[in-house]
């Protein structure tokens, strides 16, 4: 072959066109309208099918973390209020809900699922203003998943006898459920849908900073005609949660949240016969092998740690990159970070929204400072942040050691710690070297290696060549300090049935 590949002179001259003035390609501040949402000035507690003033007489404000404006006031449930909610749930359990044929219970749950779909846009906006997550996520992820979970468990309600051969399905009684602020309505769905499908009644406490969608859900249960007392809602902070989880007439406690609170609940329940399931923190390992589809792996890593501002218990917060592609991968990741759009969560083009609360922001800042102090190298893209509200720039750390706090402690924010490895054995050893075990990710083009890694990584879910994929039919839960019990899928029914553990 005779050939000549000398086009470079020409290429150079064509490069000069890069200097031509460019189009200002800014995206629309394409703000989702909030007109669709009505927020009351003040909300009571939802007990026995109606909203009531709290006996405590106390209220607390809930704010929009993107503007720091107060959205509403929400009741604090004290001891008498929690008692009333639990008795209402007990009465509803005894008076019919537990004896109702599954096919009838299913009708209510299907109806709730359809009503969630009908009001999806409104609920998505509400979730975004109360919690700070981008509208693109609440609209395209949270709400479709909420409806899907209700549909899925509605389908189980009349098939429980076939779910576990040899087990006669009997509900436990009253479930006390405490949920976090990162996916407020979705965590409600994960808890409430299987509890109702199996014939239990519920007292739910939403997180202090994000009660509004749970309150809207209470309205939906009224419209759906759900019998009074089957679903009850007590709002408040940690004290209210402790009253509920420690209540002697609660048969089952389900908690999603921090490991510290999970441990406290477990000691509170020690010696009692209250059933418990815990879904706690995580410090997931995201492992990138040299033969990974690099550009998609970059997207996977970005999704893994910056989805919902990193307020995700299964966030891929520890990145392990094979040594021979480490620098290339980090360069690509830095370039990609610079294209993330941080800001107004209601803007449809926003990728990263507001940090949920000032307390959380402070915790993130404190851990990031520790990373700098311990000698890791920080990278943050240039980024204009709004003046008001709580914000944190997407952050990478390179040169991280296993012993640094940022690679050990859950940050629960948009902060990624990057480390390298040489061999698959080393990747597994480092990935498992954590008290947590909720989730993990592997990127490689080699199918056998995916299976090899998945066998060895101590995590409840291992995603391969993707991240943060959920389906109501797929169980989810952790090992070690990430908790126990599985939510979702057929396994999720076991949390709410007698004789099953």
């Amino acid at each position: 072959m005779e050939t000549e590949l000398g086009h470079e002179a020409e290429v150079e001259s064509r490069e000069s066109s890069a200097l031509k003035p460019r189009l200002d390609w800014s995206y629309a501040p394409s703000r989702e309208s909030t007109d669709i949402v009505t927020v009351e000035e003040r909300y009571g507690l939802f007990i026995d099918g109606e909203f009531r003033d709290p006996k405590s007489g106390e209220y607390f404000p809930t704010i929009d973390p993107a503007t720091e404006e107060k959205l509403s006031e929400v009741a604090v449930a004290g001891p008498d209020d929690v008692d009333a909610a639990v008795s209402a749930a007990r009465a509803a359990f005894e008076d019919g809900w537990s004896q109702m044929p599954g096919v009838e219970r299913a009708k209510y749950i299907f109806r709730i699922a359809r009503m969630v779909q009908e009001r999806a846009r409104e609920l998505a906006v509400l979730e975004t203003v109360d919690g700070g997550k981008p509208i693109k996520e609440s609209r395209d992820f949270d709400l479709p998943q909420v409806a899907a979970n209700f549909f899925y468990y509605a389908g189980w309600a009349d098939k429980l006898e076939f779910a576990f051969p040899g087990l006669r399905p009997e509900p436990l009684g009253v479930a006390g459920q405490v949920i976090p602020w990162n996916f407020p309505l979705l965590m409600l769905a994960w808890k409430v849908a299987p509890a109702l499908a199996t014939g239990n009644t519920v007292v739910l406490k939403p997180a202090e900073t994000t009660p509004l969608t749970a309150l809207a859900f209470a309205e939906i249960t009224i419209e759906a005609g759900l019998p009074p007392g089957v679903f009850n809602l007590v709002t408040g902070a940690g004290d209210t949660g402790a009253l509920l989880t420690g209540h002697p007439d609660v048969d089952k406690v389900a908690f999603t949240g921090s490991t510290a609170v999970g441990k406290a609940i477990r000691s509170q329940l020690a010696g009692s016969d209250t059933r418990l399931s815990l879904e706690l923190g995580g410090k997931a390992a995201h492992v990138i092998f040299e033969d990974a589809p690099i550009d998609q792996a970059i997207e996977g890593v970005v999704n893994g740690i910056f989805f919902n501002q990193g307020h995700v218990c299964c966030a891929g917060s520890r990145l392990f990159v094979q040594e021979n592609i480490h620098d290339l991968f980090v360069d690509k990741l830095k370039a990609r970070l610079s294209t993330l759009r941080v800001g107004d969560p209601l803007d449809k083009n926003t990728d990263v929204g507001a940090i949920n609360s000032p307390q959380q922001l402070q915790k993130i800042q404190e851990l990031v400072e520790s990373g700098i102090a311990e000698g890791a190298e920080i990278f943050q893209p240039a980024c204009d942040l709004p003046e008001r509200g709580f914000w944190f720039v997407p952050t990478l750390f390179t040169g991280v050691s296993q012993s640094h706090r940022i690679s050990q402690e859950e940050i629960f924010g948009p902060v990624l710690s990057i480390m390298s490895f040489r061999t698959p054995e080393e990747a597994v050893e480092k990935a498992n070297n954590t008290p947590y075990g909720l989730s993990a990710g592997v990127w490689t083009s080699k199918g056998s290696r995916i299976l090899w890694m998945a066998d060895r990584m101590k995590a409840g879910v291992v995603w391969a060549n993707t991240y943060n994929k959920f389906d109501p039919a797929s169980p989810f839960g952790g090992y070690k300090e990430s908790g126990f019990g599985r939510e979702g899928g057929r396994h999720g029914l076991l949390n709410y049935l007698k004789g099953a553990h």
Partner: protein
Amino acid sequence: MTLAPSARQSILPDRITNASLASFVRSVPSVDEVGAVERAASLATRSIKRESKAEALRLAVRLMDLTTLEGMDTPGKVVQMSAKAVRPDPTDDSIPSVAAVCVYPAMVPYARQAVEGTSVKVASVATYFPSGQVDIDQKIAEVSAVVAAGADEVDMVIDRGAFLSGDYFRVFDDIVRVKQACGDAHLKVILETGELQTLDNVRRASVLAMAAGADFIKTSTGKVSPAATLPVFLVMLEAIRDFRAATGVKVGIKPAGGIRTAKDAIRYLVVLNETLGGEWMDPEWFRIGASSLLNDVLMQIRWLETGRYQSGDYFTKD
């Protein structure tokens, strides 16, 4: 075999044989289809500011290769289309000319004459478009003929059969020789991604074409379905980005086929902007190949300006 020192060649093996090219092609990063489709879909939901949209639509006109590639094409039709290319909207002289007209070899002289003295370039498909199923000498002869007839740009097709069977040398050598035959004319290399089927193949063919000398890589002939799709486009952009990082050489891109609405065109611009940046948003580096897109873009521009939609009767067909 002698190779002049070149930046493009810096990523190639020292000795170019089919075996060495095969291992080079296999070293191209793999593509995860699910991930690429997801990323393209998420970019497609971006929304553009109204003022930017007006500008973006005018840019889309400037970036267009107005195309007619039919067996029933006539000199008359080509001359009419060329007039429209120079002045897309006779009632609005603020609308810029399109980048080029794209025609069959036999039509090049008519197009050349019709656009003479304007900024509009003449592009000709060649190498026995759309199949390319002839030997290399015939391809070279056709390329030389269209360049002699006045084509500024040549749109060649790769030998997909050779690519799929693993004869990378054949594909590479064709491009190198066609590039030589092009002289000063710009070479766009059509990968016909609808026939390559997998995104791995798309990425590999993109790298092979760029290393061989393509000034532009182009998705499709428009004669095979699917033609351009956003995931294919995204993967080609990522290949261009990485090729530039490795060699310093900037290569252009042309999605073609199936882009019929202004909304589609804007989606391609969004993906381009997010992946390669504004530097590529210029006719020098980006073209949209289309036969029916122009009037929809003109209608949208008129709508943005007047707030009213006008019927198709108010826009000339050719």
